[in-house]
């Protein structure tokens, strides 16, 4: 009886601790960042090294970098996931080699990705410090998690669908397109969201690839400063930049939250519509 109660208390305590960490973090950010947040903060360019002004060009740069990352990583990861789940057996040599490489890739520190991106995209491919280089580097980073979630999602689609579709003389491609991908859609979208979150929150890899420039970017070949880089710069290199750093962090978190909930509600809506309409 006592043991049970003790265990219950411990479990509740650990859960409460987790919540407390989150609440503290959020409260800290809100307390320090909210007073600075205003429409002009969101719509103006930074001035005085970021101590004053807003973060408009930085939001745009961040958006562009994430967009480049997702549009490069999503098709690649989807294709790989389809290959892994539908066209090769999980025990095959080939599959194991790919999955092991993905595990290693997932564990590589982001600073290493930054160095690789700098050497490969900026210098070797001649893209320079640009939003394109940054986005492509982030795509490499987001690949493992996106491939893994999509593969797991596809593998957990009911085998009955595959069998039944085959018994109706449907091709594997048709079964994939009409039955398996929709069944795996929530997992694929979740992977996409994790990828975006990872890309949006990345700092180290971007310092070396998309650079520091806080002007409004004209093209993808311009250097652009991401929100996380901006926060890092304000907090570490600019005396008196703390308040704006907090405000920027709040914007970043809110943006990620919005993208996340938008994507999951869109998926739900789309799946429901698919069933309703012929």
């Amino acid at each position, binding site marked *: 009886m006592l043991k049970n109660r003790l265990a219950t208390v411990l479990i509740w305590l650990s859960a409460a601790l987790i919540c407390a960490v989150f609440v503290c973090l959020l409260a800290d950010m809100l307390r320090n960042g909210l007073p600075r947040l205003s429409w002009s903060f969101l719509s103006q360019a930074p001035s005085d090294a970021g101590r004053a002004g807003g973060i408009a060009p930085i939001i745009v740069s961040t958006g562009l970098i994430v967009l480049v990352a997702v549009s490069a990583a999503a098709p690649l990861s989807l294709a790989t996931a389809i290959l892994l789940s539908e066209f090769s057996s999980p025990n095959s040599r080939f599959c194991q080699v790919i999955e092991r490489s993905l595990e290693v890739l997932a564990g590589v520190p982001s600073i290493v990705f930054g160095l690789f991106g700098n050497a490969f995209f900026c210098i070797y491919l001649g893209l320079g410090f640009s939003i394109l280089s940054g986005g492509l580097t982030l795509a490499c980073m987001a690949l493992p998690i996106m491939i893994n979630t999509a593969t797991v999602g596809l593998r957990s689609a009911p085998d009955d669908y595959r069998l039944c579709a085959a018994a109706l003389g449907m091709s594997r491609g048709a079964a994939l397109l009409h*039955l398996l991908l929709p069944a795996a859609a929530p997992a694929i979208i979740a992977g996409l969201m994790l990828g975006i979150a990872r890309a949006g929150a990345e700092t180290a890899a971007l310092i070396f690839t998309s650079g520091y420039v806080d002007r409004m970017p004209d093209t993808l070949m311009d250097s652009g400063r991401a929100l996380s880089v901006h926060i890092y710069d304000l907090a570490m290199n600019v005396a008196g930049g703390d308040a704006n750093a907090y405000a920027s962090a709040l914007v970043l978190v809110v943006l990620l939250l919005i993208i996340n909930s938008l994507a999951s509600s869109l998926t739900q809506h789309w799946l429901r519509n698919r069933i*309703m309409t012929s």
Partner: protein
Amino acid sequence: MTTNTSNTSHCADNGNPPEHAYTLGPLQVGPPCCDPEPLLRVDNLSLHYADKIALENISLAIYRGCITALIGPSGCGKTSFLSSLNRLTDMIPGCRVSGSIRFDGLDVRSPNLDVQHLRRDIGMIFQKPVPFPLSIRRNIELPLREHGMRSQAEINDRLQEVLRDVGLWDEVRERLETPAQALSGGQQQRLCIARALALQPKVLLMDEPCSALDPIASAVVEDLISRLQGRYTIVIVTHNLAQARRIANYAALFWMQERGGRLIEFGRCQQVFEAPAHRLTAAYVNGQRG
């Protein structure tokens, strides 16, 4: 449906039923089905999963327009036999098939065969109904479109025809656009049968189509199957001996021997149930074994 067996004058087991004590109630067979003309001919079929033998040296003929029931205890390879007929065994890693299967003069095992076309001709119904997570209409429309039917009017006609065939039309005509997975189990199974019928197959393979259903739904599906007799060639796996007796024209008993599943006895349903040639059959149909 309840035609007396004495009408089956051209069938092999004509004559007075032998005076066997049977436990399953009076015998009923379907209407006299057929000139026993084989549509599917299986010779020396063996089937291995990795290093395990599932079936060994099965030879039998499936007759056009008849219902053939495969009976026998679980794990004796009935389902494996069924899925080798439409090459669904291709989907199972490590599964090897040997022997010959001829369908309407076609070599089913030929590597050059168009498997998708074969599976269109030989439809399959599974134990658990598997409606796709789409609307009722889309469930039937999807395979039709995959097989190249483009005209919406033609699709609608076919949809209505098969839903009427399975007795589902009046139940679902108002809600064709609603999710198929919201139907009851029995309705789902009938939808699956309609979906298979929509492709106008010659043969229907049914793997225990009633065993996941409640008795009433099961009776409806069984009734449907016996109505399909004559229009389609049906091979049905069933553990329900009374059902096999009621609907089948031919019956085959499979049994697990030490070297894998074997065909013990094959013949007219009445003969298998009333005058079994093999002692295992006699024991099984009288409920003493299995």
